[in-house]
């Protein structure tokens, strides 16, 4: 049961997403293939579901409203799903299954599915523990979706995190980890759809998908709560529609995907602007469409994008004083975000400076990006590489498709997007969409080189693809060995939790004791995600001050007003506790290592 509930919750969520995605069916271009339609419905449904959950959650966020929203989506999906089931055998017969890429994709999906059933372990350095999963857990406990005051990054748009919350509510703590299977399936389908659009056959589409899922830099963006792969899918769907849109309904769909992307990550705002520009350029100067019609379509798309993204940004503006939160320095001239201390801005900017430099910011570094991204991907805060195919074969794909209007659009967007990325935040997983494009051009290049140089060229191309896939699998599978073991052995899972999660014993004590109610956490480095009880954290890791006080004595002075039953104190980075050994009004009830739990008398 502990493993079935997460799987069932994910199936419910996907069925619901298909139901909501079906609402977009009329907007899909008529010439899109069945695969293209599936991608649009699946991704669009996921984005719409997340947005609806967010809107509902502003007023009431508990299991009942979540299940209502999910079941409504399932009701919408019943008819199309039954139709698809009837046609399933015929559809499967039409699909070719080249053995090697299918085996690679299957292996990655199976590993992800099994490993995704293990409980999450780690500390605040893990983004999911720090905020992706923390927000949903706190929302469900509080019954409403609000940013967590002690974690600045929970103010981000949360179209995917709301789905994590729905999964937690219906399938428990393991369910969001299993969501990685959906994310990887989405990127596989998106890649295959784009590959076919670029003219590859079914085999080429399979190979492109295999190259993408075997990229460690892509894979890490899909697992343990990272939403970068799903974000990449939303953005790539928008890219596809940006260059294939002809009628106003197509442009509206393009806008919807831009809006969903912006509801997932703030970085999509830049991508949206770039995409609108690229769509304009390609439609007018390459496809030679009437400028007035193009501008009208893009206006419709912008309205749709803003409408879809507005709930997330309006909420921030109304409740926290600034639509984009944490605000970029330039916005501080126009908005006055609440509770945004100068120290927090300083800490954020310092972190950005430290983390986002990647390989440097000069022109030479920019020109060397293809090389560095291939051979030194980890320098861009990315775990693992992207394989050889984009660098070795991609240029030939670009050459071969240089007269292709759609490919021109992709290239223009890729160049502008990577320039923006290079100038802002050089974090590897932020450019997963470009890695996918690299793999696509790589596969086209592979086929081209094999045609031009049939003997040695074919062998070299096969070597490149083999290296890419094997290197990727060699990174991915061993990295998930612990998760695989934990998923099938509960004793190992408990042992691992104690070993890999700081203060796991203390969390177990706090969660187990029914007399413990509200907890005051005095250390900003404690991962509150692991607490199942309500808590108050006076200080966050970015310098947040939720109570408006800076020192422990000041917090203790406020203790009667906080209505806490217990206080959790732990040694900070300097090795000192925040409270003295025998604090007045508190009784020590638990001590383990560097942690102490006091009962409020």
């Amino acid at each position, binding site marked *: 049961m502990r493993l079935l509930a997460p799987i069932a919750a994910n199936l419910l969520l996907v069925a619901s997403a298909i139901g909501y995605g079906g609402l977009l069916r009329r907007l899909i271009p008529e*010439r899109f293939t069945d695969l293209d339609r599936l991608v649009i419905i699946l991704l669009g449904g996921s984005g719409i579901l997340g947005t609806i959950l967010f809107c509902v959650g502003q007023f009431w966020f508990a299991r009942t409203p979540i299940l209502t929203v999910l079941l409504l989506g399932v009701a919408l999906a019943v008819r199309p799903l039954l139709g698809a089931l009837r046609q399933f055998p015929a559809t499967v017969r039409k699909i070719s299954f080249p053995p090697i890429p299918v085996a690679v994709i299957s292996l990655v999906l199976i590993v992800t599915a099994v490993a995704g059933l293990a409980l999450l372990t780690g500390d605040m350095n893990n983004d999911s523990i720090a905020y992706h999963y923390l927000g949903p857990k706190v929302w469900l406990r509080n019954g409403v979706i609000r940013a967590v005051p002690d974690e600045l990054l929970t103010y981000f748009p949360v179209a995917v995190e709301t789905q994590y919350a729905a999964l937690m509510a219906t399938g428990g703590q393991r369910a969001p980890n299993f969501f990685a299977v959906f994310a990887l399936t989405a990127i596989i389908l998106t890649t295959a759809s784009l590959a076919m659009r670029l003219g590859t056959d079914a085999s080429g589409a399979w190979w492109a998908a295999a190259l993408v899922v075997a990229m460690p830099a892509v894979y890490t963006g899909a697992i343990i709560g990272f939403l970068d792969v799903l974000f990449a899918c939303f953005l790539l769907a928008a890219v596809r529609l940006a260059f294939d849109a002809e009628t106003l309904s197509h442009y509206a769909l393009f806008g919807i995907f831009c809006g969903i992307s912006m509801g997932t990550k703030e970085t999509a705002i830049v991508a949206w602007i770039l995409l609108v520009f690229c769509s304009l350029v390609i439609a007018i100067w390459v496809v030679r469409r009437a400028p007035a019609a193009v501008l009208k379509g893009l206006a419709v798309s912008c309205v749709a994008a803003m409408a879809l993204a507005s709930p997330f940004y309006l909420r921030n503006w109304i409740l926290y004083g600034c639509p984009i939160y944490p605000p970029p320095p330039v916005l501080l001239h126009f908005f006055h975000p609440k509770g945004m201390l100068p120290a927090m801005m300083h800490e954020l900017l310092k972190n950005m400076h430290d983390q986002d430099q990647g390989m440097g910011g000069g022109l030479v570094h920019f020109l060397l990006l293809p090389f560095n991204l291939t051979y030194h991907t980890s320098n861009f805060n990315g775990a693992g590489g992207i394989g050889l195919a984009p660098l070795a074969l991609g240029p030939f794909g670009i050459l071969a498709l240089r007269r292709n209007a759609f490919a021109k659009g992709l290239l223009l967007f890729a160049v502008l997007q990577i320039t923006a990325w290079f100038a802002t935040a050089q974090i590897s997983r932020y450019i997963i969409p470009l890695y996918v494009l690299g793999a696509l051009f790589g596969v086209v290049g592979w086929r081209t080189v094999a045609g031009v*140089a049939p003997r040695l060229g074919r062998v070299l191309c096969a070597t490149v693809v083999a290296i890419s896939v094997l290197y990727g699998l060699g990174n991915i599978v061993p990295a998930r060995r612990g998760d695989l073991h934990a998923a099938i052995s509960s004793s190992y899972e408990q042992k691992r939790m104690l070993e890999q999660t700081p203060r796991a014993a203390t969390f177990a004590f706090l969660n187990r004791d029914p007399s413990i109610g509200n907890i005051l956490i005095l250390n900003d480095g404690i991962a509150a995600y692991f607490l199942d009880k309500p808590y108050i954290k006076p200080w966050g890791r970015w310098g947040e001050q939720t109570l408006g006080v800076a020192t422990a004595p000041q917090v203790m002075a406020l203790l009667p007003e906080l209505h806490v039953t217990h206080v959790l104190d732990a040694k900070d980075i300097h090795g000192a506790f925040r409270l003295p050994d025998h604090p007045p009004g508190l009784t020590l009830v638990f001590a383990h290592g560097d942690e102490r739990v006091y009962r409020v008398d």
Partner: protein
Amino acid sequence: MSAPDSARLRASPQLILRTRWISLCRPYEAHMRKINLLCIPQGFRPGLLASVAPTGLNIARGEQMGQAFSRPPKPRRRRMPVLFCSAPRLKMDRPACPPAGTNVCPTGISRVLLAAAKSGYSQPFSMSEPADANSTAPPAVRAADGGGPTEFAPVLWPRLAELWILMTIVIFVFLRILGSHTAQRILSLVRHVFGR
């Protein structure tokens, strides 16, 4: 070529091959069994055909065919041989049938090849079909996107492509395999063993 020879050729199924890409011939392998003469361009190595052409097929070079087999008029074309001149053109802006003045191929073959291209042509650049709103074929054939391998070959020197790919592999081996900790340990072990 004598007049009787020419007449004989016109009366029998044949295929004019104007490509150096043997991989592009593979979809037509079945149709090569239905013909009795294959015309290949000057410079094309017949050995490359061994894997796709049936044994006993008559092969004639383009220069032996005389005026009747001369290259069709191709505006904006370079000197590089193009694809099957009797097959559907691979570019949207070109006619989907043999150009006028080169009617050396029986219509039947053209139809066979056209049908093959529509049903089973699986190269990445099969731009031969017009846009079809309800088609489930790869979308590349639906869009008037242009581009294709015929445009590609003059730009790319095959050896250059091979050199580039080889270079990326070698760098990968040096940086990612020999540069890794595991490789370093193996290398020190090797040194240690041979040092003894």
